[in-house]
């Protein structure tokens, strides 16, 4: 399969690019909700528009009312989200959440998917425990109680945690914390008794929650897939989230880059456009090169994931690590080349830097994924 978009994908990209620039732009969404101190950190009206565009259910099966598309298509949407810094629950809901629900019972899919596809339901995903991503270890426990389970423990960095209608929780149902087996995924409804939130606004103005589960009673119908056998599904959800975040990062990186080269072509010093200075030209050209490489490896990993390749897991980590490093370079160069105005809140370039930082941490930073690349490569 060639490493560029098919005609259908190019058409999708064209419509999403226009939509996101018009409706999801920085002033209309990110700054608006931030300055309004919105408790969700995103607009429900826009989420509804996502649904009208057919984006919310793009990964869901056709039988469930979705479009049965893949990660290449989801990545097209995420790249535009990244370019416009559009706050939305798309990644946690339509990418990770829908991936988790793909192996859920008919009942559970029927309970959540229609609302997601309609742009009315939001999902959050609770995996991390602690400040760094380490899903190999899961201590949050769900013990059998009657016909169901009792969930106890804490999760961190739960994006959209307080806005979500349900939280997909990875919990331990048997074994010890670092066992591969004994993990189960649950779809925990927001109104379940015993859920406590400590919601915090992050550097990029998104909302995350430290969630506490204090003996939350869950009936058996909330289990996704098999009890104790959730590790494979969790890995699918992780891959979906990682490649999605990588795609969003390429959008953030190229958005910052476009803004920066635009500035190089308008800002004058010493009687010259600063873009005439070779010191800046070479840095811009190097950055362009890195962004091209990051975009290529992201689409490569998306295709492998969609094709069910055995190399997908490795390449997803390669893509997440590369996209993180390159996007980080793009925002650092962006602020530096903007000079003093790059430090002001009025200019948007700093917003890119903030978003990059949050996306890098989401589902494992570059070092985490470098470690995984070494392990998956056999060293």
């Amino acid at each position, binding site marked *: 399969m060639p490493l560029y978009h098919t005609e259908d994908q190019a058409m999708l990209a064209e419509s999403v690019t226009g939509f996101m620039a018009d409706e999801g732009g920085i002033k209309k969404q990110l700054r608006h909700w931030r300055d309004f101190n919105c408790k969700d950190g995103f607009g429900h009206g826009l989420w509804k528009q996502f649904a009208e565009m057919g984006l919310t259910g793009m990964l869901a099966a056709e039988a469930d009312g979705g479009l049965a598309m893949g990660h290449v298509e989801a990545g097209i949407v995420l790249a535009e989200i990244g370019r416009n810094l559009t706050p939305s629950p798309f990644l946690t809901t339509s990418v990770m959440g829908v991936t988790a629900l793909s192996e859920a019972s008919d009942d559970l899919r029927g309970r959540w998917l229609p609302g997601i596809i309609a742009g009315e339901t939001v999902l959050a995903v609770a995996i991390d425990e602690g400040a760094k991503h380490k899903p190999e270890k899961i201590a949050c426990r769900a013990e059998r109680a009657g016909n169901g389970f009792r969930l106890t423990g804490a999760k961190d960095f739960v994006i959209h945690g307080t806005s979500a209608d349900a939280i997909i929780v990875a919990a331990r149902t048997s074994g010890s914390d670092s066992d591969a087996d004994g993990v189960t995924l649950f779809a925990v409804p927001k109104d379940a008794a015993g859920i406590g939130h400590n919601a915090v606004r992050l550097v990029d103005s998104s909302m995350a929650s430290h969630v506490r589960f204090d003996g939350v009673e869950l009936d058996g119908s909330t289990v996704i897939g098999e009890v104790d056998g959730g590790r494979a599904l969790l890995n699918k959800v992780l891959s979906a989230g990682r490649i999605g975040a990588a795609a969003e990062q390429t959008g953030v990186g190229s958005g910052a880059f476009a803004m920066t080269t635009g500035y190089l072509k308008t800002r004058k010093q010493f009687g010259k456009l600063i873009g005439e200075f070779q010191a800046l030209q070479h840095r811009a*050209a190097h950055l362009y090169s890195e962004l091209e490489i990051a975009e*290529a490896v992201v689409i490569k990993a998306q295709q492998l994931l969609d094709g069910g390749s055995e190399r997908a897991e490795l390449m997803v980590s390669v893509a997440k690590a590369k996209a993180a490093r390159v996007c980080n370079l793009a925002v650092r160069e962006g602020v530096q080349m903007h000079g003093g105005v790059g430090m002001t809140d009025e200019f948007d370039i700093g917003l890119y830097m903030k978003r990059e930082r949050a996306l890098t941490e989401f589902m494992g930073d570059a070092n985490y994924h470098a470690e995984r690349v070494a392990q998956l490569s056999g060293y």
Partner: protein
Amino acid sequence: MSELEAFRAEIRAWIEANCPEEMRKPVQGEDDICWGGRNFVFKSAAQKQWMEVCAAKGFTVPDWPKPYGGAGMSPAEAKVWREELARAGARPPLSSFGIWMLGPALLKFGTEEQKVLYLNQIARGEIRWCQGYSEPGSGSDLVSLQTFGEDKGDHWVVNGQKIWTSYADKADWIFCLVRTDKANTYQGISFLLFDMTTPGVTTKPIKLISGSSPFCETFFDNVVVPKHQIVGQLNRGWDVAKYLLGHEREMISGAGGGEQTSTIGKVLARGGLDDPMLRAELAQFDIDALAFAACGEKFLDEIKVGKAHPAKPNMMKYAGTELNKRRHELLMAAGGSTALEWESEETRGGAPARSWLRTKANSIEGGTSEVMLNVVAKRILELPGA
């Protein structure tokens, strides 16, 4: 799709039936490469056989048209051929500047007679070409070149000197940039082809820091070149040269899967890695190598359908060569004091150190990294005054 899969099965079976076992071992060094040419000495019967069976089918240049010695494969089919070669671990049957550089330029700018004659010779490995571009005073500033061809009616008389001519001492013919109008810089250069045995042509190998001599100084003393041996129009050789440079940069970048795209962590860790810092660096390198490989694949896919920016080879050349230099720095670091050995049997005559030193030329030859960045800034990013 099924047609392509049938083609794949056919290619796979053909390679299985025709590629000698010996040609499925990885290339160990320069002298394992089959370059072809009048004076080429095959390293083994298997190497000769593999080149010949491939040439007979047009597989040495699979995507060239059949009348010119190719197999007339479509872009998708040529990709299948490359993938199946890689899958079988089969070596390229023939490597040459004729295939990588002159061929594409002739396909675009050559006359029908030139294409039939020269392309078939290249495809069959009969003639080995070298490239006469750089001069002592014209490196990065190539357009300032001074080698002059004086018009003598039905021929030119060429005088001057080239430098860094790769394998000039082993090549049969040269494609050469010659000034044919001293009044114009860009539009005063012609692209000439001539036999290296023409009276007045001499070569002198240059010994490099690696100890080997892949490059030569090449001298022209009243060399007679018939007029029909020009490619493209008189004084418009710079167009041909630039087009060809794109292919040269693509080649040096390793976009087609050169050594810089292969990972090194697993190989180096075979004996156990007790240095966590080195392990981390290897992982970082492997990430960059795998990502660059994807970029090379994407680039080639896009070229075939005209989606690639015409200046993209410059970016690929920059990224690929910088990566390859880093690769060899890491190989040296992992090798420790063993890798320093210059002549030992264990290092096959100092191969690690010599290769490491050789890679330093990667970001100089065919346009320096700095020139590549200039071109990207100007032609792709369209920065002012670049």
